[in-house]
């Protein structure tokens, strides 16, 4: 791996899952910057935030579906309304407890969603994602 991803955002209410996923990503050495949001709203606030006039613009987002408050679907609705500067060239993938065809079809409606995986995030999935979207980082 020559180059690392600038920033990865994990959106999940489960602390244990976040910890496990963060650990997997770090172990794979994909990035040094992992931001964790515990709800959809928190993630939106993070995306809209500015640091010295620049939005965080994470390179990769993992979005959980089942969350209290704003769930994954509601987050997607809001996310699609964001300004381009806030969205950046983000690759968004969804994580679900299990693969449900209906959920998968529903996710296809959103153009931002580029992947749909069942939890937990493992090495195979991550390798897949890097191969598909970030070949230059290999």
């Amino acid at each position, binding site marked *: 791996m020559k180059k690392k991803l600038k920033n990865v955002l994990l959106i999940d209410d*489960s602390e*244990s*899952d976040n910890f*496990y996923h963060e*650990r997997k990503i770090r172990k794979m050495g994909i990035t040094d910057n992992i931001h964790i949001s515990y709800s959809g709203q928190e993630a939106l606030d993070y995306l809209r935030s500015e640091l010295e006039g620049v939005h965080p613009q994470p390179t990769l987002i993992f979005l959980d579906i*089942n969350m209290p408050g704003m769930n994954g679907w509601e987050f997607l609705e809001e996310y699609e309304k964001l300004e381009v500067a806030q969205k950046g060239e983000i690759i968004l993938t969804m994580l679900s*407890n*299990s693969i*449900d*065809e*209906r959920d998968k079809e529903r996710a296809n409606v959103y153009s931002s969603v580029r992947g749909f995986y069942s*939890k*937990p995030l493992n090495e195979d999935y991550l390798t897949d994602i890097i191969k598909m979207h970030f070949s230059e980082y290999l």
Partner: protein
Amino acid sequence: MKRIRNIGLNNFIVLISSLLLVVFLITFSFIKNAASAELVAHTWEVKNNIRRLMSSINEMESKKLGYLFTNQIGYRHSFENARKDYNERFTEISVLMQDNENQLQRLKLVDSLVNLNFSDFEVILFSEERNVEEIVLKGKLDQENADQIQANLEMMIDFENSLLDERADNYEIWKYIILITIGIAAVILFLSIYNLVKRVQPLMNELLETKERLEFSNANLKSTLTDLHNSNLQKEAEILAKEKAVLESENLNASLLAKNQQLDHFAYVASHDLQEPLRTVSNYLEIFQEDYPERVEGEATMYFEFINSAVDRMRKLISGLLSFSRLGTSGEMEEVDVNEILNDIIDDFDAIIEEREIVIESDEMPKIHGYKLELKQLFQNLISNAIKFTAPDVTPNIQITVDETVSYFNFHIKDNGIGIPDKDFTKIFDMFSRLHSTKDYDGQGIGLAFCKKIVELHHGNIWVTSDFGVGSTIHFTIKK
């Protein structure tokens, strides 16, 4: 209607012609009667005039004699007056008697006699010399003439009298004829009316009867209508009750459907959510083993293995439950070729078929209407069960046959496996039900439960027949 018209027309004609006849007769009689009255009046006039003529002759006679004997000028004037009167009467009577030749003759006779009697006198009257003897002589002659005049006038009066009688009789007769005619008219009128009434009477009776009959049938109709209305009400009530029952059963069906969906949803949510804590357990088992390899040794390794296998089994159970709840939701019903399904399955099982030299024989399979993925799973589960539950030292032999009834295809999958005891024939289709330990035959006890649900999705039944130790046959039906 024709009869009524006939009766009316005949009667009408008779009545009208009778009345016309009667009116004609009455008119005729009146005319005749009036004529008779006129004639009577005429006769009276004639008679009166004759009498006046007579009296003027007498006057003339007496004045003549008076003048002759007294020679007074007064008599002479009176005579001249009487003569004038006579002439007027005569002219009048002549006109009146124009119609009667006999009387006219007599009148002329009288007139000539009068002229005879009085012309001499007139000569004398207007001469200064008069011969009394001559007058006396002539007076005798005149007397005869006067008698004759008298007689003739009397005859004339008699004649007029007889005419009067005759004409009065005529007048009376016409009067009676009028009365009789009126009587006849009344009788005809009465008879006609009577006849009409008599003829109309049966018609009236008939009409009345018809009216009564109509009223009766009306009443009948009304009661029939009431009956109909009542039975209609009853029917409506029955229909309402039936509709209610249908509605109730529909509601029941709907609620059952809803309950089923709720159950499926429950199973889905439960299994979906159960995955999460299970995942956490397995995730952190992994991390623990990674982070503290030195602590996982000796008996701890065995404990970890037990925990791992339990978690693994749990995950399989949950994902089985999840799949079970999703059966029939993957797609739409379509035409499915069972031959294709079997070929696919045999391809999938290629390795084990070769390894155990498995024999799978099947009839020509039909095309059925159903869920493709589920149907494949059904056959796959049954064939895999047949292979799995055949003793390792026996070559599995699987026979797949099909027959059909009017509305169902009946499939039979026969194996030479270990068989099933009779008491377990129904139990095997229950969820998580297993007859053998994991040690002997691995599994979660969901395969046949899946099969049962898939068959039921296709409105069919599934059951098993078996000779314990010899083999089993799974039978299932799929609605056409």
